């Protein structure tokens, strides 16, 4: 037993200061110190909040400037024709980018068909086999692949797909874009599955679920909103990629939705029009850029919507 009075143990709250009729000199000095300390803390707080607010503002400025300029330069060229017509020959007025939009859609679908199953499967494998040498190697290589410059992916696809097939095809572009999606989807899938509590997995196993059924029906389904979000983020990232398309799909001035033919794509069309000498095509390029950003924005919104669970409760 220590010497302290048991009723005033070490954890007893400090007694409130007794209010005497007139504070002593010492008390007034202490109060003064407290006031200045608090004042300084308040000042620092205001400055810090101000700095972070300014940083937050600056972080959004580029997007605001870009959007503003795109609307100014491109909005006037957006009309019904833009969404329904194919490009006119250089120098002629009018025309649109309908074929490029269809092409981008086809490329996204092809890339998703190739990249999503592989990415989700690999993520599931990584999450279920944590700590094994193979999993660690796959995770590392996946991170390397994620940082691979897209132009390298394009050259790779050209070497191994375009050259053997003897022609530029939408398929080669889809595979190049899909390969870019794989590391992103793999990592988000792994992360989303990892945050599914172990207790949920155990509950399924204890009910007599087999391992694959537990993974597929309970774990994957619980992680699904997050995986869908990851997939949409990956799609929005590849939707605007240009470099992998330069060597694979080539571009196309006419209608084509075939995977075996060269195909038009929005980023490519923007690139081609932007470097052309005609003002009219420049305007169309701006409009195309605006539409491309719009598409990415819509996909991002869809990603946010997908995060909400089926029952309208926040996914926790």
């Amino acid at each position, binding site marked *: 037993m220590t010497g302290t009075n048991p009723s005033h143990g070490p954890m007893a709250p400090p007694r409130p200061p007794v209010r005497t009729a007139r504070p002593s000199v010492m008390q007034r000095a202490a109060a003064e110190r407290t006031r200045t300390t608090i004042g300084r803390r308040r000042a620092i707080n205001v400055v810090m909040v101000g700095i972070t607010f300014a940083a937050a503002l600056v972080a959004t400025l580029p997007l605001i400037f870009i959007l503003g300029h795109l609307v100014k330069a491109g909005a006037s060229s957006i009309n019904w024709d833009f969404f329904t017509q194919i490009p006119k020959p250089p120098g002629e007025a009018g025309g649109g980018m309908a074929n490029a939009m269809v092409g981008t859609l086809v490329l996204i679908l092809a890339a998703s068909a190739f990249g999503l199953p592989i990415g989700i499967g690999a993520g599931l494998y990584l999450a279920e086999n944590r700590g094994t040498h193979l999993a660690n190697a796959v995770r590392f290589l996946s991170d390397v692949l994620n940082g691979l410059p897209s132009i390298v992916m394009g050259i790779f696809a050209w070497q191994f797909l375009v050259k053997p097939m003897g022609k530029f095809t939408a398929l080669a572009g889809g595979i190049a874009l899909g390969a870019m999606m794989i590391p992103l989807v793999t990592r988000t899938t792994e992360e989303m599955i990892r945050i599914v509590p172990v207790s949920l997995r155990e509950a399924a196993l204890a*009910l007599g679920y087999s391992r694959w059924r537990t993974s597929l029906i309970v774990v994957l389904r619980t992680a699904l909103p997050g995986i869908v979000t990851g997939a949409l983020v990956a799609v929005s990232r590849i939707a605007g990629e240009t470099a992998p398309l330069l060597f694979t799909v080539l571009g196309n001035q006419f209608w084509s939705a075939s995977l075996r033919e060269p195909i038009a794509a929005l980023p490519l069309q923007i690139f081609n029009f932007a470097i052309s000498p005609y003002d009219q095509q420049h305007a169309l390029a701006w409009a195309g850029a605006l539409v491309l950003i719009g598409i990415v924005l819509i996909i991002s919104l869809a990603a946010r919507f997908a995060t909400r669970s089926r029952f309208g409760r926040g996914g926790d």
Partner: protein
Amino acid sequence: MATEPPRAPRPTAAVAPPAAAGAERIRLEARALCAFFGSAEAVRDVSITFRDREVTAIIGPSGCGKSTLLRCLNRMHETVPTARVAGSVSLDGQDIYARGINAIEVRRHVGMVFQRPTPFPTMSIRDNVAAGLQILGRDKPSRAETDHIVEDALKRTALWDEVSTRLKDSAVGLSGGQQQRLCIARALATRPAVLLLDEPTASLDPISTQKVEELVYELRRDMTVVIVTHNMQQAARVSDRTAFMLTGELVEFTATNTLFTTPSDSRTEAYITGRFG
């Protein structure tokens, strides 16, 4: 003896099930059971029997191996990497660790409920209860039969009146106590012979705890229940027999009344009188 054990009155069960010691046959039996995590031995040479229509409580301080012992009884222990089991566990005379016995089949007959409620968040209340039925393959009951089983399981856990109007809602919207009773209903729906409860009230408030205890008391009418608990009063309230474990070993296993009034081992006495743990 001066230290009167904490034996609170039984919950007000409608019919007190028969609990004559030794009257029921042995349903589950562990012989010389050892369980390891890597090289660490969590359960050491435990031999214990669980009788039909009885509630057996396993008590002991944290880390004494009581949960691990429980998880050996439905082969959940082996789902942890590096975990391994020696010795045998037999269910109705059949060794569940024998060659050719499928762990999945074992778990269908030996249900389990965990410390924290684990409703499947993507499923509705009804689908949660029916979750164990959906995997029965050819024996899967029809929709109408499933509805009937779900209703029955929810009634047994006294949850039916609270959720019957919102069976299609998310199970995550229920309170913690309701979620835990839902998990018990989910375990009951497949009609297991044995129900293992791993500290089922550890995360619940007193009212919910009482409801779960009443339920456990009722369940013994037609099954074997094994409950791991930190709470000695709870063991005294709901169980017919109590096992006391310490550092992986089974110290004492006898009728609950005897263990809490006249323990034969000094370590048991020290634990139940609160001298450690």
